[in-house]
């Protein structure tokens, strides 16, 4: 059963007709040729597809396109402004935070969201005082908050460095 929907992808409004069974991830990759978000597991278990959906990090592999008609999608590609890499993407390059790069677009979107969430004062599972108004993104906070993004190459140590450098913390000892 087909449905016609509109998504704003990386600032561009796109209208497309999809089968109701199509996920946002397949709509992006297979219908709109937006291949920045990668398909790893297709079951919400790896984070490689991570995008910002209406401004918040989400997994488009578990989101039906028809349920997100009118949504705003930002991929790692779309985080760049005027041809300038987003500070998080820049930090991934500087910290050598990848090997094959397959998980990287998802990691970058997730990291951008982690910075925003910490800015809102959201605690994490390792925050000692849940009631505290501010959080400091030390290594354990970054590792916990980024745990929804697996890296098959195991670039985790440098990913934490990259996020810490943008957070303005040195991350502490490894």
């Amino acid at each position, binding site marked *: 059963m087909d449905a016609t929907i509109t998504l704003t992808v990386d600032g561009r409004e796109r209208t497309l007709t999809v089968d109701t069974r199509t996920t946002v991830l397949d709509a992006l990759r297979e219908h709109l040729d937006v291949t920045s978000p990668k398909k790893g597991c297709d079951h919400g278990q790896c*984070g490689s597809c991570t995008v910002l959906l209406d401004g918040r990090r989400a997994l488009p592999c578990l989101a039906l396109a028809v*349920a997100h008609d009118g949504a705003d999608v930002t991929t790692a590609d779309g985080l760049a402004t005027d041809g300038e890499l987003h500070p998080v993407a820049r930090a991934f390059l500087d910290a050598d935070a990848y090997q094959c790069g397959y998980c990287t677009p998802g990691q970058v979107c997730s990291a951008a969201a982690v910075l925003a969430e910490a800015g809102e004062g959201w605690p994490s*599972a390792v925050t000692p005082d*849940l009631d505290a108004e501010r959080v400091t993104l030390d290594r354990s906070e970054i590792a916990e908050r980024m745990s929804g993004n697996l890296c098959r190459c195991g670039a985790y140590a440098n990913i934490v460095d990259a996020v810490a450098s943008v957070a303005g913390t040195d991350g502490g000892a490894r």
Partner: protein
Amino acid sequence: MRPFTHLRPDTAGDAVATVAADPDAVFLAGGTNLVDHLKLGVATPGTLVDVTGLTSTAVEDLPDGGLRVGAGVRNSDLAGDPRVRRAYPALAAALLAGASGQLRNMATTGGNLLQRTRCAYFQDVTTPCNKRVPGQGCAARDGWTRYHAILGAAQDSAGLQHCVAAHPSDMAVPMLAFDAVVRLTGPDGDRAVPITEFYRLPGDDPSRDTVLRRGELITAVDLPPSPIAARSTYRKVRDRASYAFALVSVAAAVAVEDGTVTDARVAFGGVAHGPWRATRAEDVLRGAPATDDTYRAAADAELADAAPLDTDVGGNAFKVPLLRGTLTSTLRTLVEGAA
């Protein structure tokens, strides 16, 4: 995947009427469990009734001092709510221990309560499962039971258990400890079900996880005012440090005066068909000295009827000492932290 129609009714009443009238229709919220099940063939509905926007996305103060959590509130927003973090810290901690940042942004309060078991055989349509297909048998009985129940799975006359699945929700565990109330609207009107009565034991019909009737929609969860909840915590033990389901978990709240436990709330996750309220442990704790011996006795009282599974591929007897130790250390940390 079976083709389906996606409907977006204007009101909760319309959504309820549609699902009540059509046995082939189901509600869709964040989709993090249902869309997975569509892909796996575990769920094969002909119609998805999207309830996004039809239930409240607000956490409201109740006149009695409690909180009303709309069914549409995302897990991340509930965990971040300052009132939840202050007055019900075990609930914030349980939410933060669940899934990942991405999933918590999508998952709703209603959907979290109704997520289905992660039993590998339930999710694999090529293996027999009484929960998926009543009467088919249970592949877990001879299989991989690391994530399965040790409490509350009744045996039939032949000594066989119909279903030994565990409920995967972290959020539901502290909600049970704090006597939350699930608010429903259905074809026959509204009702409020204490969460202590919301989840079913498998009995001889494991196909039903809860007492929810066809067409009933969760509209909110009420958290009653609970002074003891302000000193509560959630401890989750898993195979890796994050982004994994619980092997066992404990939500606990205690009040201690002059070295004596005056009141306690305890619930377990990962060990039964629903979150498990440890009333026997609570009874042992009340009035007893706040010592490790008491905490262990409380765990032993609750675990006296534990029936772990012993299978060729490992079984889950390890959960008994694991839960005993987890409860003991959780209570100790809670009491020490308060001193």
